[in-house]
């Protein structure tokens, strides 16, 4: 009853073309953003920030970037972890090597470096398609894993191989409390999500989708595959690179190449598949699901064991987590191959008609 668009007439092109054409959606989004910015910092405790909220924000950002490449442009990439690493290490090097480098600029420059690397490793996509491309992007993953481990210049010759940043502050405001970190990441996420949402609705976004649906046909109607694919790689790896820099700077503080291993790439791919390919909203759902599942299993399994009077040792819990994680992924793919975003839109359709069946 509440969610109905009757009487909302569009009288100008502007109102017809807006991102959220339904007034209730607009209100809901504003409320959500307001709650995330004001309500959550007041309510959440430190554990929640560290274990769930901050990882969720940063990984949603990375998933958003990956979704542009895989979901909108149809180029499967297994090298996301590497692009995150490039963003993080580039930002680190800008911070260390240039005196008085503002954090914001370092983060964005990290993204720019990731863009360059992303375009470079995206060039093969002009010739290679599908699964072949997926394996080819693994080259990026393994190469950069190795480079950040072995080439000491990248880690500023630190003896342990791990790098760290401290005393982050932006425009004079220190980012040291969990709340500040959370808000910092939230701002990034909101800005990039809005940019991405508008980008995929635009000329270039439609080109990406045409390439995804059938690249030969797209080329025939005059879309340049080179331009479309490489811009998708560029935009995607920029966002992923910034997310990587945030992951290193804000979430981890000090990190090693292992933080951006191939598991991270798989994890992000899981997020967008479970969330929904080709959906901005889906990236958030997927990230929330994948971030919270291990935390939930970690809490639930010992409790469940206690219920039956069995104490489960940590190794078994780790293995059981793997099993349940794998089984749930398969289950999700079978039940809803189009991801949580599809469930969301089905729910919205139903809500428009409610309480009537048709």
């Amino acid at each position, binding site marked *: 009853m509440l969610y109905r668009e009757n009487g909302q007439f569009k009288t100008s092109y502007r109102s017809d073309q807006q991102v959220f054409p339904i007034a209730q959606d607009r209100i809901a989004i504003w409320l959500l953003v307001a709650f995330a910015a004001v309500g959550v910092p007041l309510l959440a405790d430190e554990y929640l920030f560290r274990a769930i909220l901050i990882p969720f924000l940063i990984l949603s950002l990375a998933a958003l970037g990956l979704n542009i490449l895989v979901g909108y442009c149809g180029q499967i990439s297994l090298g996301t972890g590497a692009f995150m690493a490039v963003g993080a290490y580039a930002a680190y090097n800008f911070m260390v090597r240039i005196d008085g480098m503002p954090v914001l600029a370092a983060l964005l420059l990290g993204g720019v470096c990731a863009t360059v690397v992303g375009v470079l490793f995206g060039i093969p996509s002009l010739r290679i398609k599908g699964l072949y491309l997926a394996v080819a992007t693994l080259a990026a993953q393994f190469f950069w894993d*190795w480079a950040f481990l*072995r080439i000491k210049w990248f880690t500023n010759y630190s003896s342990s191989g791990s790098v760290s940043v401290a005393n982050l502050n932006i425009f004079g405001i220190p980012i040291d409390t969990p709340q500040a970190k959370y808000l910092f990441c939230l701002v990034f996420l909101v800005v990039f999500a809005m940019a991405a949402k508008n980008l995929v609705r635009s000329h270039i976004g439609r080109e990406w989708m045409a390439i995804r649906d*059938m690249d030969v046909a797209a080329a025939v109607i005059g879309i340049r595959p080179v331009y479309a694919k490489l811009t998708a790689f560029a935009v995607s790896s920029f966002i992923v690179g910034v997310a990587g820099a945030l992951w290193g700077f804000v979430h981890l503080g000090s990190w090693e190449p292992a933080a951006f291993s191939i598991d991270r790439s798989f994890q992000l791919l899981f997020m967008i598949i479970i969330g929904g390919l080709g959906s901005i909203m889906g990236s958030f759902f997927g990230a929330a699901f994948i971030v919270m599942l291990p935390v939930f299993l970690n809490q639930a399994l010992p409790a469940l064991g206690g219920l039956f009077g069995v104490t489960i040792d940590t190794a078994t819990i780790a293995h059981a987590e*793997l099993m349940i994680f794998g089984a749930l992924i398969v289950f999700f793919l*079978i039940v809803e191959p189009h991801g949580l975003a599809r469930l969301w839109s089905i729910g919205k359709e139903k809500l428009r008609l409610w309480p009537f069946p048709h």
Partner: protein
Amino acid sequence: MGSFLETLLGGLMTGMLYSLIALGFVLIYKASGVFNFAQGAMVLSAALAMARFSEWIPEWLGFDNKILANVLAFCMAMVMMVMAAWLIERLVLSKLVNQEGITLLMATLGIAYFMDGSGQTLFGSDIYKIDVGLPKDPIFLFENVFQGGILVNKEDLYAAAIAAALVALLSLFFQKTSTGRALRAVADDHQAAQSIGIPLNRIWVIVWSVAGFVALVAGVIWGSKLGVQFSLSLVALKALPVVILGGLTSVPGAIIGGLIIGVGEKLSEVYIGPFFGGGIEIWFGYVLVLFVLLVRPQGLFGEKIIDRV
């Protein structure tokens, strides 16, 4: 010259082992169009089962004969792999018919997680030994030709021979038996095969079982070389460039790709590696593949990809 040949031979033998794992990928991809990321997990589970059963069976039955124990353990592990194949077909693949390639790929990743977890829950997660009596001592070849001869690991030699025999066996199976012909028919065209009465579901179970068998053999060989532990499932990641280099749909491609990658890795590590600080084995295969694919997007022996609108 001697050391060059030594590296070359070492590379060839490692390559043979890579192709053993790559073979599992190719078999499944050909028959069901699934890029099976779980191949590594299958190798790990099979090797774990083999290692543990060969310890347990003599205890259970109360005898002390290593050969018999190994044979029985091998059979038990094989039964397990067939069961796994059947379950995967029943619970996963048959529900995901007609989905896109990436969805299937993710499903096999899910299977991989599940198998990694369940294998280690059932059989434990320590490092285990597989001892099938492969001799470990190195031998020297061509001692009269070169100064000092060429050092070759006898174990590698046996492993390579077993791998070669397995490949020969598989190609006989594919060429001569009616099941093999059915498998090739399914690989060529699912619908046409189904319309002449080949049961797709059974074929998939068979193919996954054969891949399980290949995984078991690979697991036994790698396991007796490196010990059975979690890192065994990562060997599959080394075999990925092999599959892509040879072409996803070609069995000979998997073999030749394996040899090329094996040799390339070893030679590059020895002759180029020192300039980069070493350890370039990890990515050499992938970067090599990247450049080959730029010239031949379907791999060296893959079917030509034809785009239709």
